[in-house]
């Protein structure tokens, strides 16, 4: 449903993506793994129109979205939960959720229904709904960022390093919700991770990025037993 063809993205004169192609189909979880600086976030930002590729094309449901402004891409149903969560620190938890639904014209009743859905999925957010988001712990902020992303009822949601800096027990919880989002809510998921083992076990397919290029792709179950992957990313 989302297809990226051979995009090249620069920061000033530095080339961060040297012709990257990528696709995700309905109901898939696709992971992207790679070392720090490989270009994973840049690929996400290129899809969202936060940075502009110099060449190549991004197509969503058959429509070219390469040059659409970010807010229009969100309106089409693609949501990106950025690295470092980026919750609005001085805004309440519930207002953060409301902002997640900015691109949709929901009635107050629909909004309230959505809040309840999010609070059922992330009960700790409910207790803290009036608190400012900046006062939440790292794990809670990640939950909020995920819930905020779901508020617009997206068709694709892309998580950038959702496990970064979280305690292992919270990481399990986050991955559990990500699987739920895919399996129960039927949303396609792109999962960017440095934690290769978690990413490979959670996803159907996987792309491996190195220095701004995709160096390997395939079924996650195949890659997890691939010797070079084992050595480079799984430390085995």
């Amino acid at each position, binding site marked *: 449903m989302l297809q990226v063809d051979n995009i090249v993205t620069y920061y000033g004169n530095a080339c961060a993506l040297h012709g990257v192609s990528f696709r995700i189909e309905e109901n898939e979880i696709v992971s992207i793994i790679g070392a720090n600086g490989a270009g994973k976030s840049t690929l996400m930002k290129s899809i969202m129109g936060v940075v502009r590729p110099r060449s190549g094309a991004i197509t969503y449901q058959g429509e070219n979205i390469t040059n659409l402004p970010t807010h229009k891409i969100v309106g089409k149903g693609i949501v990106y939960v950025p690295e470092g969560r*980026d919750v609005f620190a001085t805004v309440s938890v519930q207002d953060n959720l409301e902002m997640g639904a900015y691109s949709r014209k929901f009635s107050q009743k629909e909004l309230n229904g959505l809040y309840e859905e999010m609070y059922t999925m992330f009960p700790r957010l409910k207790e803290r709904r009036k608190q400012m988001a900046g006062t939440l712990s790292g794990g809670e902020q990640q939950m909020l960022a995920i819930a905020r992303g779901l508020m617009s009822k997206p068709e694709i949601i892309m998580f950038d390093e959702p496990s970064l800096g979280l305690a292992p027990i919270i990481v399990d919880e986050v991955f559990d919700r990500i699987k739920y989002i895919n399996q129960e809510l039927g949303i396609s998921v792109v999962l960017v991770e440095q934690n290769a083992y978690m990413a490979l076990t959670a996803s159907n397919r996987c792309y491996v990025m190195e220095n701004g290029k995709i160096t390997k792709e395939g079924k996650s179950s195949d890659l997890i037993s691939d010797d070079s992957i084992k050595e480079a990313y799984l430390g085995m």
Partner: protein
Amino acid sequence: MQGILLQLIVSGIAMGFVYALVAVEYTLIWNACGLLNFSHEKIIMLGGYVFVGTCITALGMSNIMSAILTIILLGIFGALIAVIIFIPLRNQTRLIAVVATVMLGQILNEAAVLVWGPVALMPKNFLSGVFTFMGATVAKSYVYIIIVAVIIIALLELFFKKTKPGKGMTCVSINKTASALMGINVKVSIVITLILSFMICGVLGIITAPIFTVKQQMATMIALKGFCAGVIGGFGSLPAAIAGGLVLGIVENIAGVVLPAVFKDAVAFALMILFMLFSPKGLVGVRDHVRNLQENRKQKKGKVNI
């Protein structure tokens, strides 16, 4: 004596609100696109000229209709300036936008003489006269300034805390990329900001017209002092801007009694420099400092274990 004191307090609060509105007006733009509007003094002046020179004098409209039309026209002008200056220049080097807004101010300044002539204009029967109570005579204009400012601040508070576009603008001021990722159209948000900011400038031009008369330099002092108010309160925060304005207005008026009158204007700038040296985050910084001290004391007493 009591009467004089009351008089000073009322006029101090009124000027404080004027500085507060100036601080709010440019803080809005700063928050929305990270740029200072160096033409704001001349936008306030434009409000005064459109109100007295065009609406009242040339078109012969009533005071209230003139005020409404002026505010609407300034809002439209704000949208125009958003599209031709602030949106295209927000991602350029800061200097380019600084020069552009300074030039806009210059153009308006010269245009004012061409359009409305070099003689200062005075609105007739507008917020004139005095109230007398408790032995004090207070100019009506000061009382109206306080009322109008309180209404504007309350409306802004409602807008930012209760409405979707208002909350969106708050988020844009916190993190532009994250806001765009929520589906917020950052450009539209800049246009709305400029409209609001210029409308507030229009109101300032109208309500200060009876005090300063309408002339090219009518807003020079309040624009500078409004800037001081923002620094004193804590740059980038609306409530801090309002607090800074009120503190400045009152301190300045009291200083006017204690010190020789010529020092009155210097007080604002001295206060700003003191804050820059000792609390660069303004009153917000002072508040945080006091909170930290209290936290530390509590921790020492063992009441809080973090």
